[in-house]
């Protein structure tokens, strides 16, 4: 019967997605990056720097590129080892798309780079959501939107109200919590993927 068949096909698709580690890999990589930002952020100038520090300006654009490159190499390695392909579109296409988008941003949309300075969680969240949308992965889209909206609102509130310098560390704690949340989601998903039927 068709109901059973469509169920079975959905289960099969989920199994392949689990074998590709399609959800856990990006969550773990971007979770580690967000945690890294929480640690490195204060040394790069933090929000108070107003984007004057080059390190803060290039942190997300550059590290996102290396994250995507890492995901691409990882998926290639898995394909060679396990025989399951890189997915469609592959991280190769995603990385190429990201590079093209960065060129466009640098040439005509420079203010977009300041998203990584003033709304730092929005950048990785937007990339996660974009990967999810492109690869038809609802979990990534959902987590990207949640982290992006929550992180964006938090940064806007801090920008609007101002944070006394002695409380600046609080911002790093929020980023660290977001990073840990992504890492935890990644680890839980990885466990599920390993035991996928």
């Amino acid at each position, binding site marked *: 019967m068709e109901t059973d068949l469509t169920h079975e096909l959905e289960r*099969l698709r989920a199994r392949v997605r689990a074998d590709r580690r399609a959800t856990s890999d990006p969550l773990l990589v971007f979770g580690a990056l967000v945690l890294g930002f929480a640690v490195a952020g204060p040394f790069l100038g933090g929000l108070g720097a107003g984007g004057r520090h080059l390190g803060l300006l290039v942190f997300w654009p550059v590290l996102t590129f290396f994250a995507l490159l890492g995901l691409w190499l990882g998926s290639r390695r898995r394909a060679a080892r396990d025989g399951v392909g890189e997915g469609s579109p592959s991280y190769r296409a995603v990385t190429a798309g990201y590079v093209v988008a960065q060129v466009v941003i640098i040439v005509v949309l420079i203010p977009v780079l300041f998203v990584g300075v003033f709304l730092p969680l929005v950048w990785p969240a937007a990339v996660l959501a974009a990967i999810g949308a492109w690869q038809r992965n609802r979990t990534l889209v959902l987590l990207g939107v949640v982290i992006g909206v929550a992180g964006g609102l938090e940064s806007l509130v801090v920008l609007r109200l101002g944070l006394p310098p002695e409380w600046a560390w609080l911002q790093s704690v929020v980023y660290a919590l977001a990073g840990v949340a992504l890492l935890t989601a990644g680890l839980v998903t990885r466990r599920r993927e390993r035991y996928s039927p």
Partner: protein
Amino acid sequence: MTAPEPGSHPALELDDAVHQKTRLALLTVLDEAGRADFPYLKRVLGLTDGNLGRHLDFLAQQGLIELTKGYEGRRPRTWAAILPKGREALAAEMKLLAALLARFNDRVPGSPPETP
């Protein structure tokens, strides 16, 4: 096969090349993975070498997938990759299955709702 009349029952529009259960499963796996090697497909679908090879050859003859045979070191390795025509055929099949399900659910009160 002659083309079905417009507005005819969706079942008449099913493509035999794709609708066969094993081939539908193969196309689903390849649509998700992009490509996969022979042992992976065998393991995931629980097929024998002969059965899998026959269905892969059939899909390749229909222009739905591409088979690439090569070597990794001394080990021969066969990869199957889905082609755009294969994706289109799979999408059309899933659309027809959804239409069939909707028809079934409309006619049978209390039948399970359509799966997302």
